């Protein structure tokens, strides 16, 4: 398995391990989410851009260091604008704590997991409750063999 995918799975496991989260955690989620199926609140860890640290794409003849961006997407539902934003920010705080509890994510080849910012909360009306969505970004620095990224 490519190390980038192992990192996504490790980030999911780290977020799930936070018992204060109170949300379902997915990877690469694109199918719709349903409150009646108990899928919300929800967190999805997605692969973002992966950028080699050296302009040439390798750091030495032995290895490549790279920065993988994880997009941690958050969804929730609530009755009002204030409650929706509050719920989104609580999800953001809990995922932050989870991803900073161990900056290696339990992987020997990960050297750092750093906060990369967040988007603005997006509230969608139309249904019987408001839907909130927020994207947060995390940058994971990792090392791989330059001939084999697995």
């Amino acid at each position: 398995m490519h190390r980038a995918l192992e990192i996504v799975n490790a980030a999911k496991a780290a977020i799930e391990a936070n018992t204060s989260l109170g949300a379902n955690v997915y990877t690469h989620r694109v199918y719709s989410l349903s409150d009646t199926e108990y899928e919300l609140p929800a967190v999805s860890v997605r692969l973002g851009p992966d950028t080699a640290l050296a302009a040439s794409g390798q750091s030495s003849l032995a290895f490549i260091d790279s920065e993988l961006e994880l997009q941690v997407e958050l969804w929730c539902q609530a009755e009002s604008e204030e409650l929706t934003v509050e719920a989104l920010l609580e999800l953001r705080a809990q995922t932050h704590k989870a991803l900073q509890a161990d900056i290696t994510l339990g992987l020997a080849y990960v050297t750092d997991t750093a906060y990369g910012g967040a988007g603005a909360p997006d509230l969608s009306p139309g249904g019987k409750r408001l839907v909130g969505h927020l994207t947060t970004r995390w940058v994971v620095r990792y090392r791989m063999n330059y001939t084999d990224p697995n």
Partner: protein
Amino acid sequence: MTLETPADRLAYVQAFGEPVRCESGKFIAIFDNAYLGVSAGDLDVEESGPRLACVTADVTRLAIRKETVLAVNDMDWRVVRIEHDGTGMSILILRE
């Protein structure tokens, strides 16, 4: 279907509607709560879109406005938006 007169409109909601209660009184409206996919990020959240179709005269008579609480089938809803169609019918968009 064209509902030409106030009597036509009233007959329509009385034929297909159900009683709705609010603080200022009662009226008859057609309740609908169909599936609605709410776009959030790049996926949909599965929702339903509760709404009532009623005669505009009832909205005026009962002073229904945003945040008015309406009881339909023992469930309370709040009015989010009122859409008058300009011909004597109104749609009340609801939320929990």
